[in-house]
């Protein structure tokens, strides 16, 4: 064996070993993540879970939602109207009109105090342009502010959905923005589409309400009431589970909330005195008023922050709070951040519409895998038989290259975390069919060289070198079209393109480098060769 040949064999062995090792390693790490029972995943489990399966194979839901940003604009407008009304109570303004989502008009009467109105508009509505005429002042939302509002609405909707999905406990969810106002949600393994759809579309309900009793256990709280029944003006709400414990705590709170998510304008994490982490929230004009009255009358009591019927925290009311307040507690920076996020993302800022929805039940996925694998195995066997019959020993050479191609492709897919879909399985087997082309090109060339009277060794060398340019060309054309395919379409089709591209790149290695090396191993050692089995 020549020195050069030895290195080539070593390289192939290393690549194959790395591929097998990588595949098994990825398999174990995936299988461990999903493992719920006692013990650990077996070798078989690891082999099965090395490649991530697409929604169409493992079952799940794919949703495209559109955020109705007009809702957010309307809310912004209503807020502005409310603010202006409150700030110009003694300016005698006239009737209010709402011509579009982003504008409103205030009627002017002879009694209207225009100076006060202008002052209020300048001070409290910096995001609004106003013009006079026709006996009214027309306010229009400025373009940057409009864009910002829409932007915030979509970003907030994404956050809200993410919160809810996390709450629901889905493994590996995908929630991403798509374009200006669309959101893509993919939830693998979910088999209850209706429940999830409702959960996502549901407007998260945030309420700040006074605590009557708690936190305590359910039974202890009930026992404080006559007859063990919570009276109708109160309700029993579960507290957020403390991390690390499974104990459930409950609160009894007033049913009539002081303020709800609709009254909240914003919330952000802040650092208070002595560096303690807290959350500052801002209320709308009407919210401020309600909140001020309620907190002023209940200093010393506790206020529960309830989101979707679960108490997030229950701080003490220290003072009368109007438009802005601080929630203090023993928060870590992350907790403060998360709580602010929940407050912000609590309610959906705008309605959602389902534009696209694809559900695959678990049994269909199983069926698809079974059929895809059967077809692939049958297809591969047919190709193998054809190669062995047509090219004899050289055919076996091709079969080894093809098997390696399949092996490396599987390893690459697991290492790159590529997703295998049903069309992806088709891509897998199609790759095998197409990778044969490279072998065929070389073998035909070798046969031709032999016919032209060349010595076997030279024929093999010439066959590979002459076919090489063509092999590059054929791969390039298919990869170009697969790249355009990648740009287009949804999950399953993308999965097909990915499989095809990786498979073809690998076939450059297996069909040329590996196959050539095998030829040399077979014929290179001998001094004299009479014939080549091809």
């Amino acid at each position: 064996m020549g020195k050069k040949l030895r290195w080539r064999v070593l390289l192939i062995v290393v690549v194959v070993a790395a591929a097998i090792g990588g595949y098994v390693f990825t398999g174990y790490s995936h299988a461990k993540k999903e493992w719920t029972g006692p013990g650990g995943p077996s070798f078989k489990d690891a082999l099965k879970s090395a490649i991530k399966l697409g929604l169409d194979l493992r079952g799940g839901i794919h949703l495209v939602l559109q955020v109705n940003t007009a809702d957010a604009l309307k809310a912004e407008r209503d807020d502005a109207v409310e603010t202006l009304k409150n700030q110009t109570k003694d300016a005698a303004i006239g009737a209010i009109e709402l011509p579009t989502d982003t504008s409103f008009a205030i009627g002017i009467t002879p009694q209207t105090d225009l100076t006060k109105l202008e002052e209020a508009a300048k001070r409290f509505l910096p995001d609004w342009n106003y013009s006079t005429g026709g006996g009214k002042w027309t306010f229009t939302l400025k373009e940057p502010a409009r864009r910002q509002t829409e932007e915030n609405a979509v970003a907030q909707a994404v956050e809200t959905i993410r919160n809810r999905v996390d709450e629901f406990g889905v493994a590996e969810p995908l929630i991403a923005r798509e374009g200006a106002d669309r959101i893509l949600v993919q939830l693998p393994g979910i088999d209850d589409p209706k429940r999830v759809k409702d959960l996502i579309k549901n407007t998260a309900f945030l309420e700040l309400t006074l605590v009557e009793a708690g936190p305590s256990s359910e039974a202890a709280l009930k026992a404080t009431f006559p007859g063990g029944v919570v009276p109708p003006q109160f309700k029993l709400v579960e507290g957020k589970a403390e991390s690390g414990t499974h104990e459930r705590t409950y609160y009894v709170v007033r049913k009539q909330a002081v303020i709800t998510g609709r009254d909240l304008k914003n919330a952000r994490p802040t650092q208070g005195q002595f560096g303690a982490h807290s959350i500052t929230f801002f209320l709308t004009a009407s919210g401020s008023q309600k909140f001020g009255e309620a907190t002023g009358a209940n200093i010393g009591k506790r206020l529960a922050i309830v989101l979707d019927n679960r108490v997030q925290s229950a701080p003490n009311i220290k003072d009368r709070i109007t438009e802005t307040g601080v929630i203090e507690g023993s928060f870590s920076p992350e907790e403060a951040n998360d709580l602010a996020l929940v407050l912000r993302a609590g309610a959906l800022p705008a309605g959602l519409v389902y534009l696209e929805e694809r559900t695959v039940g678990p049994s269909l996925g199983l069926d698809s895998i079974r059929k895809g694998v059967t077809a692939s195995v049958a297809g591969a066997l047919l190709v193998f038989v054809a190669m062995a019959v047509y090219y004899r020993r050289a055919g076996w050479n091709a079969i080894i290259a093809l098997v390696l191609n399949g092996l490396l492709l599987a390893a690459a897919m697991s290492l790159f975390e590529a997703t295998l879909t049903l069309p992806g399985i088709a891509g897998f087997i199609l790759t095998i069919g197409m990778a044969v082309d490279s072998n065929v090109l070389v073998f035909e060339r070798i046969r031709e060289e032999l016919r032209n009277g060349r010595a076997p060794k030279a024929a093999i060398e010439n066959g590979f070198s002459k076919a090489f340019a063509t092999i590059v060309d054929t791969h390039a054309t298919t990869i170009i079209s697969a790249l355009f395919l990648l740009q287009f379409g949804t999950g399953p089709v993308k999965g097909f393109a990915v499989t095809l591209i990786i498979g073809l790149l690998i076939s450059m290695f297996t069909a040329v480098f590996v196959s050539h090396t095998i030829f040399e191993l077979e014929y290179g050692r001998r001094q004299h060769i009479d014939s080549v089995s091809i």
Partner: protein
Amino acid sequence: MEFFRQTNIDFLKYKWWAIGASWALIALGLFTIFVQKGLKFGIDFSGGTAIAVRFAERPDIDRLRKILDGAGLGEIGIQRYEEADKNEVLIRVQQQKKEGRDVAGDVLKTLRQGLASPTDPGKIDLNTEGKGTLAARLTAADPDKVSGRSDVTAGDYYTQAAERVIGKRSSLGLFHAAADVNGVEGISAPVKAWFQANAYTGPFVLLSAENVGPQVGADLQKKALLAVIWSTVGMLAYVAFRFRSLPFGVGAVVALVHDTLITVGLLALFGREFNLVVVAALLTLIGYSMNDTVVVYDRVRENQKTPKKEPLEALINRSINQTLSRTILTSGATMLVVLALYFLGGEVLHTFALTLIIGIVVGTYSSIYVAAAIVVIWKDFKNRRRLAVVPAPVRAEPIAPSGPPPASKKNSKRR
């Protein structure tokens, strides 16, 4: 074994016949699309809803239709799906006027109400509910009394039990009776007993539901068209870069357009549905057809390098003959694989595989009779113009109606 040992077939002798046949096929396809049937778009492109359901017993399609007609969903199509013995049907609902209605949910609800024999409303349908609901109900009932235990949480414990039950349903296809739960491994006798008392089996199980709104459908149509156009442009760019020759580039791209048109036309003729997966097959085909053409072109270029006096037509013929064995073998191997997908791959891959079957045949043929023939015709035409001594030979007569447009256009410019 060897099928084609040094063949010497005069392929290009029949080029005018071939071009005529190509035009006839294209015309047939276009006639089907624009005059007769039109292109049958799947819901990916047309919008609408498709729901696949597996029944416990052989479903009476007429009865299903009657039930669903009452739901006010517009036009509804019901057909058997996959193998008939599996009792599967595919229900299609036309695009709704307003976005946002939960069509799939409504169809399932209507079917359930219309078919189910009256059952206790407090019981759960084992063929409908997902593992989340089963786990929640089990946790609430707690048949194994785990809520007081410190080593496990009831939620986790029953989620695992629910997963096992759903897993069994998946492998069985669907539950025929609540007693089937007794066959689930790894759940306790009290849990099984709880299922007997609190669960029943509905008449069907949902396999898949797809709902595409008109906006998304229009988007996907646009994207698909752009992907096909751009990948054709990409091919043109590649061939222009690799071969630096106009007739080669034009020949290759005309072959691509030819293959795409014929394949789409035949799919329309066979009444096949046009969806995302078919577009994926078409794009694959564009790559595949180019692949074949490039192999022939590569050989032509190589043969041109040898200083042998030989007319172009003979040279191209020789190149085609030299690559014939490879062409047939590769197409054959790919065909074997695609046939396996067609017969064994199931409903989703059926049309995908058919598209590739048509495409492989047409693509192989077009690399000889379209791509190579155009190069010959182009050069012939140019030579004749250059000589311009004798009037056009008799054989040139069919050129006028069926000759490739780019060739004549280019020529008229030079005049």
